[in-house]
């Protein structure tokens, strides 16, 4: 076991040293400081303030009388879930080890319980990080409250982890045992689950029959029904069954009681700790043959990580389709756009856009004649607004058919005879194009909703006041169309900026970017997300404010100074004016990205990552 602990220590040390090595480079140090500052200013500080305002003492006053009932309810839910979970007949003999660890450790003279223990301990990094985050955001400013929250969450997550692992190993073991023994064990579990439900059912039936009679004054009744003392008297078997679940929820309550005696608080930890020890022994002592399942899992993971796996499923007839016809001669950057669009979809772009426009036109015409139910108009309006506003912002985050995928093939793309900024621009355009198309589809939905809202039978939904159209000198439908034509360039510009920033980050901090199509959920990726967030906000503020100011100045001069009435036909031009500063910023960033690309030395960071993939 010492050797495996040493291995775990070496892995941790390697990660920390790798991180420190990155920090030697000023760009990573500055990036980390910016990320931490942003996190502190915009994420942690507001939460801390809220926690301070509603301090633990005050909160305790609000919830003190509720705590026993809440504890019972949580224990009940836990018991219901666990009993149902054990009825589910499938489980995996899963011990999470990497393929390298499996190949090195399984043939080594190491006891199997030590290998399982090593795998269990490895899971602790994720659990500890989760506890830290939950405690930060929920425990307030008091160190004692923080420690209690950390401990109680740790106990809960560790127990959950061990229980699910143990259950998986236990079920997999049934397949290895003689049929009679396996059935005997299954019957035993069924009996226990039956016993639990025999105790649970009367309580549930009682609540179910009381529910319709519940009035507005439901709170005291609920509290009384879940009171542990009453439960102990009226349903002693259920109270007994709930005891282990209470051990798990107990530390949460202890952490919420500010004037609790420390010894009493610590006493609540003894039972869950005992459960952790018992669970751990159950898992590491398992005789299940986990080796094959673990190898299979690591193989499956490797296969799913393999970028080419999903393309093999494309039918032969579809393989000839391309987003547009690529002629052999012309701007080389078009070839990169063509290639990267195909990473998202091989369908013909013009057919796609054309059929989309036709579909929207046909549906809009029908809707203009028949109208739509108001609830549907409301749903379409909300969906359309969300799609139109969020999709461009998420362009760089959602679609990765750009440098983040191509950097894995740097040995090819770096040799192409193309200027850095042109290559950079051609990498940015595909995700921006796709995001714009999705946003345009959302705009189409919004247009249909708007037309339906303008139908004479519709009274409750108004997307654009009809009198506004009259005031701007056009019909209602034309105003909607002009509105969409105004928004689409803005959407395209924001999508381009979002994709540009993501690609810039890939060049500036390659070690922080997960290369390839898949996004990761690690702490490093969260840091990357934070940095992107800062960049997006700054760049959008810089880009949109001048545009808004320009449009404002336009309106002021035209309406206030020259007293010329506004026409709806000016709207698209206003949209383009608002977009102009954003386009300039995106252009400058693209030039900067090109210069970075030309000066990029991928030898230490990107080439190493590519070789590992």
């Amino acid at each position, binding site marked *: 076991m010492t050797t495996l602990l040493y291995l775990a220590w070496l892995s941790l040390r390697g990660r920390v040293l790798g991180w420190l090595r990155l920090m030697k480079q000023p760009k990573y140090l500055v990036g980390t400081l910016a990320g931490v500052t942003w996190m502190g200013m915009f994420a942690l500080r507001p939460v801390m303030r809220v926690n301070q305002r509603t301090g633990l003492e005050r909160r305790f006053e609000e919830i003190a009388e509720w705590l026993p009932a809440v504890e019972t309810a949580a224990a009940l839910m836990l018991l219901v879930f666990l009993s149902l979970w054990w009825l589910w007949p499938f489980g995996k003999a899963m011990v999470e080890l990497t393929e390298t660890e499996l190949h090195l450790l399984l043939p080594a003279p190491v006891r199997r319980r030590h290998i399982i223990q090593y795998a269990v301990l490895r899971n602790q990094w994720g659990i500890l990080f989760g506890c830290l985050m939950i405690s930060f955001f929920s425990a307030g400013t008091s160190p004692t409250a923080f420690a209690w929250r950390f401990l109680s969450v740790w106990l809960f997550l560790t127990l959950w982890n061990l229980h699910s692992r143990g259950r998986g190993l236990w079920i997999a073991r049934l397949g290895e045992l003689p049929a009679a023994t396996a059935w005997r064990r299954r019957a035993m579990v069924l009996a226990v689950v039956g016993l639990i439900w025999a105790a649970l059912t009367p309580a549930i039936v009682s609540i179910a029959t009381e529910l319709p009679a519940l009035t507005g004054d439901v709170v005291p009744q609920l509290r009384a029904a879940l009171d542990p003392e009453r439960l102990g008297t009226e349903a002693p078997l259920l109270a007994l069954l709930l005891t282990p679940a209470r051990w798990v929820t107990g530390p949460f309550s202890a952490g919420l009681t500010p004037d609790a005696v420390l010894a009493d608080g610590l006493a609540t930890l003894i039972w869950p700790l005992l459960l952790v020890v018992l669970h751990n022994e159950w898992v590491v002592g398992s005789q299940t043959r986990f080796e094959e399942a673990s190898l299979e899992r690591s193989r499956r993971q490797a296969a799913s990580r*393999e*970028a*080419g*796996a999903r*393309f*093999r499923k*494309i039918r*032969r007839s579809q*393989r*000839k389709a*391309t987003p547009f016809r*690529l*002629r*052999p*001669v*012309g701007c*080389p950057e*078009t*070839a*990169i756009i*063509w*290639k990267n669009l*195909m*990473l998202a979809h091989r369908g013909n772009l013009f057919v796609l856009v054309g059929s989309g426009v036709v579909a929207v036109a046909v549906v809009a015409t029908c809707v203009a004649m028949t109208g739509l139910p108001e609830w549907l108009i409301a749903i379409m309006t909300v969906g359309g607004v969300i799609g139109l506003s969020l999709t461009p912002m998420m362009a760089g985050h959602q679609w990765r058919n750009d440098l983040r995928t191509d950097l894995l*093939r*740097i*040995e*090819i793309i*770096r*040799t*192409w*005879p*193309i*200027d850095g900024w042109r290559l950079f621009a051609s990498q940015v355009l595909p995700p921006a194009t796709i995001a714009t198309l999705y946003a345009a589809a959302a705009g189409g939905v919004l247009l249909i909703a708007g037309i339906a809202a303008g139908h004479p039978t519709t009274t409750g939904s108004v997307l654009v006041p009809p009198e506004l159209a009259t005031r701007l000198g056009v019909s209602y439908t034309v105003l909607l169309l002009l509105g969409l034509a105004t928004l689409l360039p803005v959407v395209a510009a924001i999508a381009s900026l979002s994709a540009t920033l993501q690609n810039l980050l890939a060049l500036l901090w390659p070690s922080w970017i997960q290369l390839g199509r898949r996004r990761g959920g690690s702490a490093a990726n969260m840091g990357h997300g934070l940095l992107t967030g800062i960049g997006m906000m700054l760049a959008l503020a810089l880009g949109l404010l001048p545009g808004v100011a320009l449009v404002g100045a336009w309106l002021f001069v035209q309406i206030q100074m020259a007293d010329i009435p506004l026409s709806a036909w000016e709207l698209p031009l206003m949209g383009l004016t608002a977009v102009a500063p954003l386009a300039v910023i995106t252009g400058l960033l693209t030039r900067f990205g090109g210069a970075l690309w*030309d*000066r*990029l*030395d*991928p*030898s*230490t960071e990107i*080439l190493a990552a590519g*070789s590992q993939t």
Partner: protein
Amino acid sequence: MIEIQDLVKAYDGFRAVDGLSLRVDSGEILGLVGPNGAGKTTTLRCLAGIVPPTAGRVAIAGFDLQQQPIEARQRLAFVPDEPHLFDHLTALDHLNLFSRLYGVADGSTRAETMLAEAGLRDQRLSFPGELSRGMKQKLVIACALLHRPEALVLDEPLTGLDPAAMRRMKRTVTDTAAAGASVIVSSHMLHLVEEVCDRVLIVSHGRSVLEGTLEEIRTQLPDVGADADLETLFLKATGGDQ
């Protein structure tokens, strides 16, 4: 023509390539050999413009790679040791992509010709994930030769190939040189280098140890017979026989 003058590539103080110079004329094949970590791949990556050199000059067909990168790259083809391909493009897509990137006027017909020459006509609509390593290697070569490069750089071109594919690869290398291209082949397969290369450059610790034809190298080394093969010469020159 490929020309490298006093090339230096340093990482964190370590000089992977340390003042290397070489010249390969049109129609000539140079074999680049050296022990692991000698700086061969780094040299080739500098030559292909993948990593920028710390110092020195690289020129392809007379164009300085730093000053006129587009012109230099337009005349160069680099085949890395691993056959890197785009997972979502078919074999034909790859050739169409390279046609446009390098502006090959007869790209469509040439793509079909290259596929046929590489024996990949039946795999024209296959994705890289459906090809064997040898087939991938052939596709990479086809992409590299599509624009009729004046300089061809190959890093370990025979890795993973079957004997028939090895023979075809050797023929491709000699044919490309015969058509007037300057070729550099880096390989640990010394018999390949001995067979196809006109001259050999032995590098160690990022520096040139010996350069010339086999005969010239034999005369530069003491205690080697007149019939010593490249393996013997290599081991003698790099101290690998001790």
